[in-house]
């Protein structure tokens, strides 16, 4: 598959979206869902064929210019196909296809079934634009488009006030991040005179001084923190769970939210020159990982647990790329896409079965009713908890080992990461036990039923990936590392320590943390409800704070939103109306008045015209003469 054909990868879901936009209603359910799945599935196959040269090794990245929009600033539609882009494309299209198929079952009966797949395909096309971009302008195009799709899909059930509010929140918080991102792009452009990756990365060492590189890096971090839900801009992601569950799985777990990680890994050449920015990225990542993990412990809503867990895992990825362990970060991005998509889809199946119940206190004992979902989600839980040999173990261990190897300040971050690993194992096991074991605590009339085949098959595929997905990069066989090697040629990147001894020690530590978490949660939550309720109460007032997510929304509301609203009111009615509008109207009035005064120039008499022509001509001639003599 030549690189010139890769535009098809973007074009297919885009065409799917266009087609469904106009004909989705007519062709109806479930055909429109299958069409959308076929579009993205074909993209996956194309990407797979095109990725073969990299898998065989020795192939170099290529770019293919589709269309020069503004060549002067390096803004064009230009596909860059290198191992990093290939991996991201495979994750987006692969996991995306499974989620598309799952959604056919999940969205069954929704009156806007066709519209849902329009958005889903549009999202896929946007995300692929982002990861295949060969310059920052096209990347930004994708960046904004995925934001738009996210907004549309969070608010998909727009008749629910909470859904519209969540969509609005996501939009506003993301704008803050985008603002930083845009300034970063302007800095890149003023420094390099181009936005193309090739132009920027090759010349970065000679052009950027540490100050500029740090500024660009930190501004990229602002953008990435918005999109990838890092402290302090993570607040939109938990609310984004108002969207349909397949959306949560695809956009708010597996793909879009990893865009920030991708941008930082892609811009490694810039971060290479700005160690301070990298360290900040790692620190923010570690803080986010721990912060969100504590909140996840106390959530009752099955999707909220997963939402905070996603924030926490994204923190891990930031920790990795901030420690310049780019391979580890991307590796975790991939494995996380597998097991988190699986967890969300499983949660979706549960919610579906429980007739839209999301409170875990009202679940329990579902193992017998829906064994496939229970077992696949169990696998995902063990994977995210870091139990070997499942996928999460290998990627998380590689991150922690690499961070440990950095030493210094990073040793502190390593400890934070280790504690987070324990908490992760705890809250994920808590969730699984609460949902699937114990006595049924269902509301009256609940009749949980098995998920249809169209939903369970994607679960099984993802479960298999969650088991074996980590094996592509183990200390015994560094396939992924060799695969990604050409991407960061000439950039110093952090590796885990050498030698099987260190691996056993560090791996043992993280496995121990994981096992402790799993065991503690299992022991606690397997018992009857009163028992674990009193266990939770024992942690008051900490537990309450966690359950309320530290009341960050309240604090933001009081400190930022309310004053902001006040400021908006003041500026609208206090300043804008009298001052700005006054100024604008004033300026307009001045010019209009000036125009009226100038009008008599236009007398209509030819003599006056001729005189003006002559006088003007004399002035011009005199001016030119004066300039030359």
């Amino acid at each position, binding site marked *: 598959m030549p690189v010139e054909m890769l535009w098809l990868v973007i074009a297919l879901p885009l065409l799917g979206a266009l087609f469904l936009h106009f004909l989705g209603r007519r062709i109806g359910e479930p055909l429109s869902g299958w069409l959308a799945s076929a579009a993205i599935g074909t993209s996956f196959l194309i990407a797979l064929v095109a990725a073969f040269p990299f898998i065989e090794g020795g192939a170099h990245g290529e770019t293919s210019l589709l269309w020069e929009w503004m060549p002067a600033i390096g803004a064009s539609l230009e596909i860059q196909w290198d191992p990093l882009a290939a991996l991201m494309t495979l994750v987006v299209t692969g996991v995306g296809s499974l989620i598309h198929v799952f959604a056919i079952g999940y969205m069954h009966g929704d009156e806007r079934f066709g519209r849902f797949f329009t958005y889903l395909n549009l999202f896929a096309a946007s995300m692929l634009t982002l990861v295949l971009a060969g310059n920052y302008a096209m990347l930004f195009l994708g960046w904004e488009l995925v934001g738009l799709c996210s907004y549309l899909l969070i608010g998909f059930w727009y008749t629910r006030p909470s859904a519209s509010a969540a969509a609005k929140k996501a939009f506003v918080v993301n704008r803050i991040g985008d603002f930083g991102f845009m300034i970063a792009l302007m800095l890149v452009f003023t420094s390099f005179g181009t936005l193309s990756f090739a132009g920027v990365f090759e010349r970065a060492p000679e052009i950027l001084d540490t100050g500029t590189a740090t500024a660009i890096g930190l501004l990229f971090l602002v953008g990435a923190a918005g999109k990838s839900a890092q402290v302090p801009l993570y607040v939109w992601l938990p609310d984004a769970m108002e969207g349909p569950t397949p959306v949560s799985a695809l956009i708010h777990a597996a793909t879009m939210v990893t865009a920030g990680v991708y941008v930082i890994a892609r811009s490694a050449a810039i971060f290479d020159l700005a160690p301070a920015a990298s360290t900040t990225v790692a620190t923010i990542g570690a803080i986010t990982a721990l912060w969100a993990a504590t909140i996840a412990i106390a959530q009752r809503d099955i999707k909220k647990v997963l939402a905070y867990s996603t924030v926490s895992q994204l923190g891990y990825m930031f920790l990795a790329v901030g420690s310049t362990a780019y391979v580890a970060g991307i590796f975790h991005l991939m494995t996380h896409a597998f097991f988190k998509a699986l967890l969300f889809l499983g949660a979706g199946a549960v919610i579906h079965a429980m007739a839209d119940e999301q409170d875990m206190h009202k679940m329990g004992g579902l193992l017998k009713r829906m064994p496939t979902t229970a077992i696949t989600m169990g696998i995902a839980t063990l994977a995210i908890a870091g139990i070997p040999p499942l996928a999460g173990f290998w990627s998380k261990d590689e991150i922690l080992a690499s961070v440990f190897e950095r030493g210094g300040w990073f040793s502190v971050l390593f400890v934070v990461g280790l504690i987070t690993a324990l908490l992760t194992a705890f809250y994920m096991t808590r969730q699984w036990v609460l949902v699937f074991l114990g006595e049924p605590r269902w509301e009256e009339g609940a009749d949980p039923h098995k998920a249809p085949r169209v939903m369970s098959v994607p679960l099984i595929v993802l479960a298999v990936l969650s088991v074996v997905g980590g094996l592509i990069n183990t200390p015994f066989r560094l396939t992924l590392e060799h695969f990604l090697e050409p991407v960061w040629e000439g950039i110093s990147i952090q590796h885990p320590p050498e030698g099987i001894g260190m691996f056993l020690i560090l791996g043992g530590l993280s496995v121990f943390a994981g096992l402790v978490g799993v065991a503690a949660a299992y022991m606690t939550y397997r018992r009857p409800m009163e028992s674990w309720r009193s266990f939770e109460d024992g942690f008051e007032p900490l537990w309450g704070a966690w359950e309320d997510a530290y009341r960050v929304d309240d604090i933001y509301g009081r400190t930022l939103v309310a004053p902001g609203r006040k400021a908006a009111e003041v500026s609208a009615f206090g300043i804008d109306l009298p001052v700005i509008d006054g100024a604008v109207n004033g300026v307009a009035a001045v010019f209009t008045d000036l125009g009226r005064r100038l009008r008599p*120039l236009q007398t209509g008499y030819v003599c006056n015209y001729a005189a003006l022509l002559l006088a003007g001509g004399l002035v011009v001639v005199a001016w030119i003469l004066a300039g030359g003599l």
Partner: protein
Amino acid sequence: MILTPEVSWLAILPDLVLALGAAAVLLVEVQWHPVTRVLAWVAGGSIAIAAGITVLQWLAASDAVAAGDLGSLTAFSGMILMDGFAIFGRLALLATTALGVAAGWQFFKDLGRRGAEGLALVLLATTGFSIMVASNNLVMLFLGLEVGSIALYVLAGLTREDRKADEAAIKYFLMGSFASAIFIYGVALMYAGTRQLTILGLGDFLSGFIVSSPGVILIGIGLIVVGLGFKVSAAPFHTWAPDVYQGAPAGIVGYMAGVAKIAGFAAISRILLTAVDDFEASFLPAIAGIAVLSMLLGSVLALVQSDVRRMLAYSGVAHAGFIMTGVVGTSTDGILFYLLAYAIQLVGAFAVVAAVSGSSGSGSALSEYRGLSRRSPVLAGSLTVLLLGMAGLPLTSGFVAKFGVFADAWFNGYEWLVIVAVLASVIAFAFYLRIIVIMYMEDDESALIEVPGVVRLVLGIAVVATLVWGIIPSSLLDVVADALPL
């Protein structure tokens, strides 16, 4: 010894075809008195043939440039130039003419038997301007200028019954003669100072010799700028424009203004940037001055007009200032892009004016546009796109055009001029928006307006060009980048 002149018919074939077309229109009318449609086919056919030949010339010129054979880009012993700049200018003129004739179709039809005169005059005007953009010799250039201008004077007064049109034609003629005299005097002084009459000769002479007392040459440059500045309605030589735009038949004003701007600016750019470019330091400040005055005066005065045609006239003054900014930027491709984009928008806008208030009458009060969006969505929608294009909104050709000339001026060290230009664009935005607001926000119960198919076609082309060149600028930028003067 008998010298035979070097004759290369191919070089002037498009002009010959146009001139013959004009003659044919008149002869056919005299002989057969056919319906106007037949005459229009004759005129349209000659424009199409001329355009086809010009495209072939373009291809031949690109091949010659690629082969390094610059000698084949001149003809008639160096009198006529066939470089990319000339050929692109000619193509732009032909495109404007084709759209102009189509937009003025109703006007020609209403003229009855005199429609033939109108069509012939249009073809002759284009012939003159076409020779003008291709001339290497300043006297030749003047000839083309006069052929074109005189045809335009007559066109302005073609509806003899309309007093306003008569007034416009007389004013245009008197002032135009005045400006032509100033121009030819400037040419005479150039010759006096250098013994050179050709543009290429002037360029070689001035870069080869140090002129000890350049006063005569500088005055010559100044007079040439004044003469051509009049043709493109740059301030303070613009006074004729509002009267003519308002008085001349609406169906044909867009064409008149468009071709005059293209030919005038082509001549200004060629003379200033290739012949006397060694004096850039002397004349660029004055050109910048003209640019500032045109942009500000045009925008401010456009703001207070209550007649759409006068408003478009003043906006034309402002556009002359913006294009002058491109001259200050000393890069011809930005100017060419601007000229073509603007000329097409202008023809389209006047096609709407003609459809709203009749093709041959004069005047066009702003109040007639009230609620146009309901009376004719096609007219209102197209005019909106065209006005936004003139205003320079992103994703229209106007934005790319303005961006181009501003960037050129900026990189040529005239940052202050660009700041003034941006300010003027902001003021200009106000009056374009005013028309749009009136069309969409105010109600009017007047009758629906029928839009003839040919006008729809013109508007469709103008709108598509405005959008396509705005969204895919490279489609035109790549072409103008090759349209370089020798």
